[in-house]
């Protein structure tokens, strides 16, 4: 049991210590500093408070983990009906880098039915071993059999780390597997690195709506698990030559029992996803009329891109929720994003700051969007946009 002990005698200024707590969990009662049950054990008081004032006590040490028994970095292959989701290649790229630091192999875990072609395709990405669990019962994702297979893979291969794409399936499967293995899982990591000495995976993710960035480690458990959204990491390049071994695994029928039955699969009309667009024109609250929004759509079309926007525009029904960028919407990584009338709330920024080129147009020179932008235009968009459309048309010879 780990806990915090407050040494009142080492506190000169109780209020100053209380102020250190980012969660408001400390208060002064009868002259003593007390910690209430909203404490999140961030240890800020221990690290930045007066020396020795708050002590972090770990009373019972768990059995030390034999980390060296856990080797290799594994990627869960996101696939539906044999079609590999591109986030997989991005995770393979990252896994190769992480495994390289440890001089350990890269694994892929492929679960499905009739996925031989997908396995062969994966051989073009420099993976050491591709583990394939192919069974008609695994044709579609169901939480119980997929978890059972995943568990089997982990127990047989003992990977140091596992990366899972934050797809619809990955976001359900990864936590279920992590809970089964009683290990840590960090959601939506944006930066991953490997400490070669400790073999600990360093996981960075935005927290509290992106207002803070948290550096997370899983020092006493293996495997270390992290999910990563699409378009956050750089994809591994496809190589012409084939490498790596396909290992076909059998799994006991009894493990594939499911309490879920898929009755029907209804295709949805193919939607243009803003995640796949190279150019985005994003509208914010500063866009005051539908006519202005139509202009932005025209601009997006001219640039071969798509219209996107912030949450307020979704809420007032001007754009579809699938066009929303941000932590509660989509994460995008286009070559160009033009942000028009967007103040730059961190929730939005966190969804687009990996874009190669960020242009911001806003009439408020103090708008936070300018902090993230590469090209800043302070001015009224209703003057700039029509001019811009005309200029681009002229340049394209239209």
């Amino acid at each position, binding site marked *: *049991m*780990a806990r915090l002990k407050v040494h009142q005698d080492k506190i000169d200024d109780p209020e100053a210590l209380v102020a250190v707590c980012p*969660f408001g969990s400390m208060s002064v009662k009868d002259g003593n500093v007390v*910690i*209430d049950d909203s*404490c999140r*054990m*961030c240890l*800020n008081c221990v690290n930045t408070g007066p020396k020795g004032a708050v002590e972090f006590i770990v009373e*019972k040490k768990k059995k030390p983990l034999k980390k060296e028994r856990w080797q290799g970095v594994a990627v869960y292959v996101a696939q*539906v009906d044999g079609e590999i989701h591109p986030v997989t290649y991005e995770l393979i790229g990252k896994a190769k880098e992480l495994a390289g630091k440890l001089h350990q192999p890269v694994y892929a875990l492929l679960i499905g039915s009739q996925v031989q072609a997908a396995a062969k395709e994966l051989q073009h990405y420099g993976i050491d071993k591709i583990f394939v669990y192919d069974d008609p019962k695994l044709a*579609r994702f169901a939480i119980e059999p997929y978890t059972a297979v995943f568990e089997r893979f982990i127990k047989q291969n003992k990977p140091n780390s596992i990366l899972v794409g934050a797809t*619809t399936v990955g*976001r359900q*499967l990864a*936590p*279920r597997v*992590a*809970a*089964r293995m009683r*290990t*840590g*899982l*960090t*959601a*939506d990591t944006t930066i991953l690195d490997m400490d070669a000495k400790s073999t600990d995976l360093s996981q960075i993710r*935005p*927290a509290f*709506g992106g*207002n*803070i*960035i*948290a*550096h*997370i*480690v899983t020092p006493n458990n293996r495997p270390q698990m992290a999910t990563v959204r699409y378009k956050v990491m750089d994809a591994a390049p496809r190589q012409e030559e084939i490498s790596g071994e396909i290992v076909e695994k059998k799994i006991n029928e009894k493990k594939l029992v499911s*309490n*879920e039955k*898929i*009755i029907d*699969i*209804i*295709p*949805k009309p193919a939607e243009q996803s803003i995640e796949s667009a190279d150019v985005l024109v994003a509208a914010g609250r500063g866009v005051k009329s539908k006519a202005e929004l139509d202009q932005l759509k025209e601009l997006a079309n001219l*640039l071969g891109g798509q219209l996107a926007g912030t949450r307020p525009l979704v809420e007032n029904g001007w754009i579809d929720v699938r066009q929303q960028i941000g932590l509660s919407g989509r994460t995008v990584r286009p*070559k160009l994003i033009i942000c028009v009338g967007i103040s730059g709330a*961190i929730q939005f920024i966190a969804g687009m*700051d990996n874009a190669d080129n960020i242009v911001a147009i806003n009439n408020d020179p103090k708008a936070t969007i300018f902090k993230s*932008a590469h*090209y*800043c*235009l*302070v*001015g009224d968009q209703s003057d*700039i946009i029509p*001019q*811009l459309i*005309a*200029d681009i048309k002229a*340049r394209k010879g239209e």
Partner: protein
Amino acid sequence: MNILVCIKQVPGSSEVKVDPDTGLLIRDGDNVKMNPYDLFALETALRLKKEKGGEITVLSMGPQAAKAVIEEAFAMGADHGALLSDRRFGGADVLATSYALSQGIKALGDFDLILCGKQTTDGDTAQVGPEISEYLEIPAVANVTKIREVTDETMTVEMDMPNQLEVVEVAFPCLLTVEKDIYQPRLPSYVLKKATADRKIPIYSLDDMDDQDENNYGLSGSPTQVKKIFPPETNTTQTMLEGTAEEQAKKLTTTLADLKLI
């Protein structure tokens, strides 16, 4: 049908500020609310109850002040509520949170259906629901956008996939995490608020759990550790495109052309 809904108290504003000097969150302790995604889970429970009967229990974990969200759930129509609150639960990551909640659910009784919102607005992980289902050893469906049919043994739901809707029949007991907009959440009723003002909210501590090993809860039961927190970095290389609107548009057009974006 016996339904349990997991709810959480979160900061009232998503625009939490960070002190640029200390890197610490500037929090407004009084400004808290029910996690907005949980409202959809609660509304789903209320609709199912209306159709199929039964009772709704809400469960939350947090400081004593988190009772407020349970009271709000009462004012929306929940029948019972309980709060898991114990210093020894503090500092819990996803795994330890899910474990404590699953132990709390077991302590509260048998449920046919556990409902969770898709994620919280503060933690943002969307992982607690699936992890609870593992500890309860029950099937789970996430991204549920519609409930089609409920029978005595099963329910049929639609799971939203990127290019498909999957219609899934799942056996009770089970856990669902519902999408935003599955139903429009109702507003709390003043009449219900008055009527439930005296309703007791039991507090569950570690001593009420089946597993009382402190090492499985709170920071000790958390495999992940926060090594450091810091404010997000801002972009450093920046070009100002100045002048009249005409000049700005020209400069931007030239820039885009130079970048081969036109």
